[in-house]
């Protein structure tokens, strides 16, 4: 699996994710400060065509579950 390191915009700490996530229109989750954020770096060349392993031919934002508190935060913003 190709991975990519990202920096959290809130705590500035670095963590790694499946590089395919960067091609999706979804936020990432900082394991250090619990922030959900939209990554700035989008790797256009890595837009996924879906993955056989995940069993989905297309992956989009609608399938992604966010925790209750995060949904509340986004509604209040």
């Amino acid at each position, binding site marked *: *699996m190709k*991975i990519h390191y990202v920096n959290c915009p809130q705590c500035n700490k670095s*963590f*790694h994710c499946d590089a395919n996530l960067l091609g999706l229109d979804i936020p990432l989750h900082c394991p250090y400060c619990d922030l959900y954020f939209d990554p700035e770096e989008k790797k256009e060349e890595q837009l996924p065509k879906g993955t056989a*392993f995940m069993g989905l031919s297309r992956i989009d934002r609608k399938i992604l579950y966010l925790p209750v508190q995060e949904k509340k935060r986004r509604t209040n913003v």
Partner: protein
Amino acid sequence: MPKNLRTWLRDLEERIPGEPLRVSKMVKPASFEVSSILQQLEERGNLSAVLFDKPTSVNAKPSDYRLLSHAFTTREKLAVSLDLQDSNRVSLFEKYLETSRQRKKTEIVAPTEAPVKEVIIGEKSLDIGDLPIMRHNSMDGGPYLTPVVVAREPNGERYNTSWNRMMYIDSHHLAIYMSPRHLWTYFQEVEARQESMPIGVVLGHHMAFMLSASGLVPLDEDEYEVAGGLLGEPLRVVPSEAYGERLLVPADAEIVIEGEILPQRRTLEGPFGEFTKLIGPQRLSWLFRARAITHRHRPIMHSVFGAHMDHLYAHFPIEASIFQRVKQAITGVKDICWLRSGGSFHLVISMKKRTEGEPMRAAMAALSASNFIKHVFVVDDDIDPENAKDLMWAISNCCQADSDITVLHNIQGQLLDPSLRQETKGSGLIIDATRPLDRPYSPRAALPPEALEKIRLEDYISS
């Protein structure tokens, strides 16, 4: 009394003096306090099981739960789990294989006879954050459960048991990671029908039950019956609160979270420190929604310490199953070593070679048995497969690279292997470091035994 986690702890106390260690002080598992204690013990060579009496919950409140970890860290504890006096590796393999073949039909009991129903928390009142869930390693995406997940096959009666890491998300949700094996296969079928799949998340039982979840059992066999074989008595099961007889859960478990994996939903999961001792990346995983939690009074939650010895040894049944497959292919196989080989995906096979080609056949059997195996080293039976120096000696002295090393292309790899360049496809390696049979070979240097016996060192060298 039916076997359960408490009878296992009693046996452990009787068999291994000083175990389990007990921590009566309050600890915060979600703030790395439990993992810090476990790591420091491991660094001091103390691999005892540890029972924490007062762990706080994820919600940072004192809880009624207790927490047990380091239950798999030594062969001696595996021997207690399998009710075996000897803790030699091959003896453990043979005991596991023998008992796992003695399938026992499950016994369905009434809820009044099921300890796991002593406390029942329904969907509205439950909060997974009330559990004392550990954060294991730096960068973990959240507190992680390391349960045995039980699921009934779609349109069938058989049950699958498997270890699946599950990340805490909120009061009713966990992320669940599934490797492409049986549980994943079940869910593929269910999701294709746009349906959810009920599962039970078992957080503590007798360790023979927990071990049943990592064996390489064929898809068409009932793993509840395998668990019965390992326990030496039928596994007692009880209808679940949320799904009734559609999902039978272990009656003697400490805690079961009942719920379902949802179709067409995914969630962010990870990073997580895996058995490879590497932190796997954040990824999309599947979404679990809880419908009920049932547990014993003063329940003991079991947690495997991720990315450490405990995690590795929880894979023991896989090693035993690989031993069986290799032995079935080549009867001259004496021993194998995966978990202590020093490499997450290395296997060493020690065998008495009778004809050329046997090492290759043994290695192929291992590679076909499990995608946990990527590199196979085959050595003669005078080599201890657990001794890395012995292995290096054999490769150095018995191997020619142009004829004894085989690279295999396009085989299924392990998703947790970070060196994979494609999603699931990789390569394999076989090194035959056995001595050739078709020509005389130099013997190992050694003294005449009678000369060695005759000399008493103390008579010549004063200490």
